[in-house]
């Protein structure tokens, strides 16, 4: 018995000393790049705009911030974001974050879940948060086109004046002052999006030549110092965004639409043409169902407008690719990523399937254009993969399941 007692005691000791099981440790490495000072240039996506507005929640999960969290393991010295001071949010139209609400139809008692805009906090535009001792590394300016990065005050963009060093500076100047060792540049979608969001009724996509000039100026100034390295991303086809695909996602409908060029000023929608998410309210009140009430042109991208957007997008992406090649930057094919997400099969990552379905797809937020926090993490991982490949680095990927998607009521 004595012996057995001792053996039991011995086994107990073993249990507590031998229970450590091994892990396979990740070995981070900066490779051929220096990530000490990382600066991000771009538009709403870079800024962390989500659910139709800019607020702290979206900024904290902006894709550059997620990249920077990973770069902290390969020598990054810290990444300052121009965080909104209030608890609120504000979008370019003055609204606050969209939220999913449960609505009850008073006639049928049917319930539906619909995104509704919140109240924007306009005071955010009046914030002056520039701090010379800790300037913002995230220089993403919501709504910026390529030329905005060169323009004084970003062309009068109130999102930039919040954190710009002075009232006449440009985004590029505020970037150069920091002497970055590494830069991410993802710009250009608003060069077509401004036109597309208005149903192609106002303005036109930036001419490819003008886009190429702006881009050439930006990169030649940022990368005169040969030590600075970077990552550049192309822009997705707008057709991959739920904002342009959701309304007809159940199938084509021969809606009656306004078209000044058509006999009688109206015609039927043609297959392939896009109805914008903003048309949802008008459609509910019967617009597009009859000749008496055709759907306004600002809610529709017709074949001509789509062709203009497509050719501009292709030209911009050629410019971006040739810059990547010329400067030997890491190149992120976000157009391909978004194409995969919006394909029938979607993409499967870490146990979940993602698609471009509005609300439920997981990648796109409630505005149908910008990313959810998890969408940002998926984008950040594409950047990291490209940087690792180009600079022989070993930056760990972000764990996307740690980031949220949309919240149901």
């Amino acid at each position: 018995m004595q012996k057995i007692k001792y053996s039991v005691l011995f086994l107990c000791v073993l249990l507590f000393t031998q229970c450590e099981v091994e892990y396979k440790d990740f070995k981070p490495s900066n490779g051929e790049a220096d990530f000490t000072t990382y600066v991000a240039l771009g538009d709403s996506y870079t800024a962390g705009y989500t659910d139709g507005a800019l607020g702290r929640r979206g900024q904290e999960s902006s894709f550059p911030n997620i990249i920077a969290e990973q770069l902290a393991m390969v020598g990054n010295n810290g990444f300052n974001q121009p965080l909104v001071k209030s608890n609120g949010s504000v979008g370019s139209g003055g609204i606050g974050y969209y939220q999913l609400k449960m609505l009850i139809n008073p006639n049928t008692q049917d319930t539906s879940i619909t995104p509704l805009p919140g109240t924007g906090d306009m005071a955010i535009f009046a914030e002056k948060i520039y701090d010379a001792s800790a300037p913002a590394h995230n220089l993403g300016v919501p709504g910026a086109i390529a030329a905005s990065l060169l323009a004084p005050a970003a062309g009068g963009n109130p999102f930039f004046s919040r954190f710009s060093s002075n009232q006449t500076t440009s985004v590029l100047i505020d970037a150069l002052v920091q002497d970055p060792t590494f830069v991410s540049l993802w710009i250009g979608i608003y060069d077509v999006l401004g036109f597309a969001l208005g149903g192609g009724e106002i303005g036109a996509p930036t001419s490819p030549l003008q886009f190429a000039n702006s881009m050439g100026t930006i990169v030649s100034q940022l990368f005169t110092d040969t030590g600075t390295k970077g990552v550049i991303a192309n822009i997705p086809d707008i057709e991959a965004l739920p904002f342009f695909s959701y309304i007809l996602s159940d199938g084509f409908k021969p809606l009656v639409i306004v078209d000044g060029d058509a006999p009688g000023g109206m015609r039927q929608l043609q297959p392939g043409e896009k109805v914008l998410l903003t048309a949802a309210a008008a459609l509910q009140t019967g617009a597009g169902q009859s000749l008496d009430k055709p759907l306004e042109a600002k809610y529709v991208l017709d074949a001509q407008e789509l062709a203009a957007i497509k050719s501009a997008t292709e030209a911009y992406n050629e410019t971006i690719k040739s810059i990547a090649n010329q400067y030997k930057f890491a190149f992120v094919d976000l157009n391909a990523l978004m194409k995969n997400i919006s394909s029938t099969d979607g993409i499967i990552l870490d146990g979940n399937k993602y698609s471009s379905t509005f609300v439920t797809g997981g990648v796109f937020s409630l505005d149908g254009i910008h990313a959810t926090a998890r969408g940002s993490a998926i984008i950040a991982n594409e950047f990291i993969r490209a940087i690792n490949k180009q600079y022989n680095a070993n930056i760990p990927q972000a764990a996307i399941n740690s980031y949220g998607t949309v919240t149901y009521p």
Partner: protein
Amino acid sequence: MNKFFIAVLLATMAVNSYAEGYQVNVQSQKNTAMGHTGTALMLGASSVHFNPGALGLMQKDYDFTLGGSGVFSNVTFSKLNSTYQTETESPTGTPFYFYGAARLSDRFVASLGVSTPFGNSLAWNEDWDGRYLIQDISLRAIVVQPTLSFKINDKLGFGAGAMIVLGGVDLNKALPVTGPDGEAHVNLKGSTTAFGYNAGLYYQASDALSLGVNYRSKVAMEMEDGDADFTVTSALSSAFPSDTKFDAELPLPANLTFGAAIKVNQQLTLAADLQYVFWDAYQELVFDFEPNTPQLQDSYNPRKYENTLIYRLGAEYVLSEKLIVRAGAYYDETPISDDYVNPETPGMNKIGMSLGASYMLTNNWSVDASFLYITGIERDAGYQPANFYGTYNSRAIIPGIGVTYSF
């Protein structure tokens, strides 16, 4: 010691994943101590499980043995291309066994076994990175096996038993739908009774050499009307109805084992088993939900297990009239290929090393103890259908104790 036994028997019947797939290697302390060999051994009533044929040649009139083990197991996960690491917090498993054999006549021996040859109990952190695949699972299968053995002649015994399997599964996984109270999750719980058989031949080739062959059939655990309990925000309750039921089938694979044992001298016996496991019975796990909604579709999960071999070696040494010591080792191949390693059953090749002893308290009573240490061979793999990849490591420490009464 009495208190210890009571604790073992009253503990929950969940068992841990300390063998490959979800088969368990602690069916008797004596056999466990010898690398879980036993097809060509006569170690008493545990032959009900290892080879009912051996009981046909049982020397004694009665043999009863019971015992249990404590399983302290741990699995770690290091995510591919990431600094993310985590480990399981699995509850302590407590597999148990009881075997009793009684001689009916010169040629017939009747016996009964109650044991837990299959099971899996694994708990990851609730909010871990793979939570959409699995949060925790408890799979249990208790086999009740009435058996009859027959002495064909003085050298050859045959035995066969019916396996009545009381099985159940209880698992949780997260759903990628967030409400005000956090992410949704589902609990799937079902149980079933299923049947199979266990038959074996035992041949005493000479005083020194014995041979055995044993076949345990596949058991199809078909769960019908299991409960699918969704915890989801009220706005989505119509998408995930509260009274959802599910059907699923989980096969317990057939095993064919060949064994040989040599009595080298009066003290030393050596044994070897070669066990072929028909894991290819497990090709998919389908949860057929009723009713379906646009958000709640049937869940089809390919498994694609492949047949495997387990190589076992064991030795027994009679130190004195009172004390027998044992040792053994085995190598257990994983049935899971590199693209189908799921954190629900994170398979890898495993090496088991064991020690043990029996101490005769009286002429009739003995205490049997074993200690089994299992280490998994690090595996870089993943589950392709969910695109979830990383590196798994595992280890289990399993002390066990039992008693035998024979005359």
